[in-house]
């Protein structure tokens, strides 16, 4: 079979129809779909880049591009989706969940391949629609509110994006990213509002903490592992081309501020899943701090270990009435789950021999001096805010079924595999630096205690108002440079 990337979009759509028809076999079909997706992505690695147009009859077709970066992200998506699906088998999800997740998979795959500004809008909007439905899956009141808040913030931001690409079209007569030559500043700002709101950056996507913490376990893992990567990957894709390169310092600045503020909020937070949500805000700062392959690798690693964290922690707090971390501490967790949770924590903290260490060091090499300081503070904050999860106690069960933990094990394999291969290629100074940062983080965790920080940015009206502040600041930034 000749590998063709469009199968990655067609096959999940076909499976989603099949799931609606054969409702009773939806779990089986969804597992097959995830495995097929992983197989198709692996086949893509055998050949070179794909650069082609769909329905290209007056040379105005839709441009699709699959280069190495895209393949890495597609691999991450397929791994996370497979393990989330395998983890959902032990619970009572009905065919609606599997239908939405199939459409979600198809649209995320399509959005990573799209190289056309309007096509990006369409597939992002489709992925968002399924995300609204997935967040509100159990229809608890707070889930409905989280979904609605996200819907308002996201559709306003995407209208800005649409206005921005309209202005780009007026100047270039094309939506194809590879043919863009002239870019007015205002259109860059509008496009960035739309994409930053999707990509989980502090100030711009304040829907994230509520949606990630209130959604079901599997949905949180999908959102944090896959969904926030859509916007972030489009931003890296756009910033890589020459016309957009003036915006690189702006994004880098916002990303570093986000990575520090995210950890501060995570450190002061009491609710278990919200700690992880704020940690996502901070890690997306690491991802967007540059546009090199190192950032793509961190996106890969973050998708793996953050979805593992959400799965293990989410499964533990799922049946608890109280959501505070103190209540989780009193509970005991099965051995295998606790072990995988700890490996994911080592990954996100950047302990040598685990995946986060490799990508964090590589991102650090690319940065200029002030950026290095900012990211080091964020790394210390990550350790300080997540160290408490290491103190969870283990409950011994005589026989643990591998079948129930297979989702965790797949993700753990990749955390260790990437970490072990990468660590041998790093310098000794990187290892020393990361160990010092971890020691500082533990020190901060032991000494400091933060009370509740005001959550004023998370109110819906304020979050909307931030968009216009960003527009004004962005325009000022471009006129000054």
């Amino acid at each position, binding site marked *: 079979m000749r590998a063709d990337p469009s199968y990655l979009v067609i096959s999940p759509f076909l499976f989603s129809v099949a799931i609606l028809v054969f409702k009773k076999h939806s779990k089986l079909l969804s597992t097959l779909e995830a495995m097929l997706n992983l197989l198709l992505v692996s086949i893509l690695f055998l050949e070179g880049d794909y650069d082609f147009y769909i329905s290209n009859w007056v040379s*105005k077709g839709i441009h699709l591009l699959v280069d190495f970066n895209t393949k890495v992200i597609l691999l991450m998506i397929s791994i996370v989706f497979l393990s989330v699906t395998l983890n959902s088998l032990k619970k009572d999800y009905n065919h609606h969940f599997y239908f939405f997740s199939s459409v979600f998979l198809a649209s995320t795959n399509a959005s990573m391949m799209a190289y056309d500004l*309007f096509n990006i*809008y*369409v597939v992002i*909007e489709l992925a968002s*629609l399924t995300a*609204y439905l997935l967040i*509100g899956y159990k*229809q608890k*009141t*707070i889930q*409905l*509110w989280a*979904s*609605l808040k996200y*819907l*308002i913030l996201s*559709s*306003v931001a995407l*209208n800005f994006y*649409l*206005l921005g690409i*309209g202005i780009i*079209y*007026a100047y270039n*007569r094309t*939506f194809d990213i590879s043919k863009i030559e002239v870019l007015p500043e205002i259109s860059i700002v509008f496009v960035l509002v739309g994409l930053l709101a999707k990509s989980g950056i502090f100030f711009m996507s304040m829907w994230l903490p*509520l949606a990630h913490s209130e959604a079901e376990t599997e949905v949180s893992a999908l959102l944090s592992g896959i969904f926030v990567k859509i916007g972030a990957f489009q931003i890296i894709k756009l910033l890589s081309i020459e016309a957009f390169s003036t915006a690189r310092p702006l994004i880098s600045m916002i990303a570093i501020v986000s990575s520090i503020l995210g950890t501060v909020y995570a450190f002061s937070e009491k609710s278990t899943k919200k700690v992880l949500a704020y940690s996502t805000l901070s890690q997306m700062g690491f991802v967007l701090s540059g546009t090199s392959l190192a950032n793509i690798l961190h996106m890969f690693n973050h998708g793996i270990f953050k979805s593992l964290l959400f799965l293990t922690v989410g499964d533990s707090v799922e049946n608890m009435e109280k959501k505070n971390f103190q209540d989780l501490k009193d509970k005991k967790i099965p051995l295998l789950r606790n072990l995988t949770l700890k490996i994911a924590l080592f990954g996100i903290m950047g302990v040598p021999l685990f995946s986060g260490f490799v990508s964090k060091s590589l991102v650090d090499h690319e940065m200029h001096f002030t950026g290095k300081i900012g990211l080091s503070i964020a790394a210390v904050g990550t350790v300080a805010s997540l160290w408490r999860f290491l103190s969870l106690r283990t409950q011994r069960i005589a026989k643990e079924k591998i079948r129930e933990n297979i989702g965790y094990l797949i993700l753990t394999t990749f955390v260790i595999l990437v970490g072990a291969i990468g660590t041998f290629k790093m310098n000794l100074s990187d290892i020393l630096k990361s160990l010092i940062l971890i020691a500082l983080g533990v020190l901060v965790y032991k000494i400091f205690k933060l009370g509740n920080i005001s*959550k004023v940015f998370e*109110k*819906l*009206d304020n979050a*909307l*108002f931030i*968009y*216009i502040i960003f527009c004004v600041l962005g325009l000022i930034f471009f006129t000054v440079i």
Partner: protein
Amino acid sequence: MIILICSILITFIGFIGTILKKNLILKMLSVGVMNTGVITFFVGLSYRSGKAAPIIDKLLKNQQDLADPIPQAVIITSIVIGFAVLTFSLVYIMLLTSRRSTMDVKRIEGETDES
């Protein structure tokens, strides 16, 4: 040119509406106004090059006077998506207001913070 400026103005009126309105339904309608502004912008874009329908015909004397079909073609998708988002959000607003018996964003937000 004037239609482009007016459409950007409509977009910003809609955006200010989403911030200032406290009622959830009015907030969603403001998003709708914003979407309408963007659609008008695209329609205005396609009429910059000409006003005739973009169908190539031998009888048409001045071939240069055609409207640009691409913005019109793509914005149809955006209209459909806007419709889907609006109807979908109204369902969720209906469920939410029947449980909380209010449409005020501030009150809903205050209650979710306490619980």
